[in-house]
Structure formats: C-alpha cells, structure tokens
C-alpha cells in the first residue's frame, strides 16, 4: 500500500491517468471504426494512431505555453512563485482532462462505434457521418468545453494556494487569452484544407 500512497502523491499522476485514458479511447475508437485486414483500414489505423500521438504531445505543449504565461503574469504581478509549483499546478489540473477521456472510454465501451465498410471509406463524408452517429463521440464533442473549464478552474484554485487569489485569477485569465491567441494564429496560418 505504501507504493500506492507514493503514487498518489506523484505530481505527474494526473498526466499519466489522462494519457492512459487517451490511449484506451484511441484504441477503442480507431479499432472500432477501421476494423478489418484490408490495407485501406491498416493505412487508416496507422494514420489515426500517429494523429492521436501528435494531438497528445501538442496538448502538453499548449499546457506548457499556458504554464509559461501564468508564470510570466505572476512574475509581472511581483509574486515570487517557484517554477516547480507552476509545473505541479499544470500537472494536477490534468485531473479534469483525465476524467473527460475516461468518460469517453466508458461511453465507447457501452456504445461502441459501428465499423466503416470498405465502400464507405471511399465516400468523402462517411467518416464524419459515422462519428456524428456514435453517441460517445457526440458527447465528447459536447463536453469538451466543460473539461476545459474544469482545467482552468483547477489551475486557478491550485495557484491561489500559493499566491493571492486575485493574482491567480489574473494569471489564469491572461494565460487563457495567450493560449486562445496562439490557437487562433495557428488555425489561421494552417488555413482550410484543399477542396473544402
């Protein structure tokens, strides 16, 4: 039981729980949608796995940017906060995202997606339609802002333990704005896909 208590104190535990949930969600979702030995499905599965890994790491980078912006604002507000505390706060804020992905895993187990046929793979909108039809994906789409709000609220509450609450609120607001600006800039730069 000692190792369990030590594990619970580990700052990175929420990130690991989130990663495990994301891996389970990706496995269930991707293998459910693209099932079969046909090379078309194999290519789709490989592409989807690579995409999930990229999404996971880019999410950690965005949280890094968020933490950096929080630290910059707190330093501007003359708060002397140890950098490790910011890392710890960002890491613990992942509990909200971890709960979100595990909820997705549970709904995928209860209502797994119907596999696409090889014929449907050639249709442009078939994947989008199947994702819309699957209850789990629909709920994940609806709940994403709630998970994000949970993340921001957790980060704010944890920062408020070490700084003045108003400064913590300002830091989280500034970091949210900075992250939104970065996401918008990247989205505008990448632009729409060809043919859409």
């Amino acid at each position, binding site marked *: 039981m000692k190792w369990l208590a030590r594990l619970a104190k580990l700052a990175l535990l929420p990130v690991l729980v989130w990663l495990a949930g994301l891996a389970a969600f990706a496995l269930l979702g991707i293998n459910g949608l693209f099932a079969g030995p*046909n*090379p078309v499905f194999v290519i789709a599965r490989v592409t989807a796995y*690579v995409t999930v890994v*990229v999404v996971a790491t880019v999410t950690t980078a965005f949280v*890094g940017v968020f933490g950096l912006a929080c630290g910059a604002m707190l330093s501007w507000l003359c708060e002397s906060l140890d950098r490790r505390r910011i890392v710890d706060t960002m890491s613990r804020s992942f509990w909200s995202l971890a709960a979100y992905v595990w909820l997705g895993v549970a709904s995928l187990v209860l209502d797994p997606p119907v596999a696409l046929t*090889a014929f449907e793979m050639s249709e442009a909108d078939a994947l989008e339609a199947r994702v819309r039809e699957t209850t789990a994906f629909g709920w994940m789409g609806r709940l994403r802002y709630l998970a994000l709000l949970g993340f921001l609220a957790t980060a704010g509450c944890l920062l408020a333990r070490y700084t003045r609450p108003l400064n913590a609120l300002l830091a989280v607001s500034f970091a949210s704005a900075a992250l939104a600006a970065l996401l918008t800039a990247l989205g505008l*730069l990448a632009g729409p896909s*060809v043919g859409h």
Partner: protein
Amino acid sequence: MGCFFGAVVLLVVGLAAGVGIAEWISAMPAQSPLPVGADRPLLAAGPARRVEEPVGWDLFAFILRRNMTVFLILLLGVVSAGLVTIVVLLGNGLAVGQLIGFARVSGMSQVDVAYLLLPHGVLELGALCVAGAVGLRGIPLAFGISAIERSSFAALRLGTVLVFGLGALAGAAGVEAFVTVGIAESLRSK
C-alpha cells in the same frame, strides 16, 4: 549542433519507419478497396466530386502556410520538454517515408522520386530540422526548470530562427509550386 544532429536523426528514423510501413502494407494480400455488394450499386454515392487543387501562387501560399504551421509547432518543444518536437519530426519523417515507399512499390524509379523530392525537400526538411534543433533544447530546459531565467529563452534566438524559417520555407514552397509541379507534369507525360 548536437540538437540539429538529433533532429536529423529523428527525421531519418521516421523516414525509414515510413518506408518500412509502406512496404509492409503493400506486402499484404491485395483486396479490392471497393467491394460492391448486391444491395449496393457501384455509383450509389453519386458522381465523384471534383476537388479543386490550388496551382501557381495559390499553391505556393498553401504550402508555405502549412509548413510554417509545422515549423511553429516544432518550436513548441521548448515548452514541452522537447516532446512535441520528437513526435512531429518522427511523424513528418514517417509521412515522407510512406510517400517514398508507396512510390517505389508502384514502380516509380528512385531517380524520379529524387527529382520530385530533392529540389524542395532539402531546403524544407533542413528548415524543419533547424526548428527541431531549437525545440529539442526544451529537454535541458525542462531538467533545469528551477534555474530558468528570461536569458534562457533569449539564448534560443527565436526571432532569428523565425526569420530564417520564413525565408527558407518560402524558398522551398517556391521551388515546390513552380519547379516540382513542372517535373511531375513531365514525368506524367513520359
């Protein structure tokens, strides 16, 4: 210099894996991707939609925007202990490797593949490796997080790297949009 070498190694590893995956997929027993069932006429989806492909300056802008996005995401390794950089470099290598692998499997000669990739690829992948080298410096930054100062970020010379990246990727996009397309057309008409 060590980080640049690391970025090149990651890209090459991804490239080799991509070629391997392409050959593994091609070695699978061939199946028709479009089995037509008795209840499903062949043209059930209606006439194929014509996808408008950008050409000329539109293609140049499209390529430059996409590559600049990848360039910026590679730089995010600075704030993610190099994780994003490692994954994106491997992923890009994997994509290029798959392209080379499938081209080889479909009977395209290695010289033709080189004609299509090298003119813009050297500049493009070189610029991405420079961004990768900066992103990989996030690893030592993460290990010494208590000692991070404003000067730690200033030492990365992000402004210079961004200007270099924009210039190199604009050059690569120009070559790809106006030279590589011409080479592809001449190869198609062979």
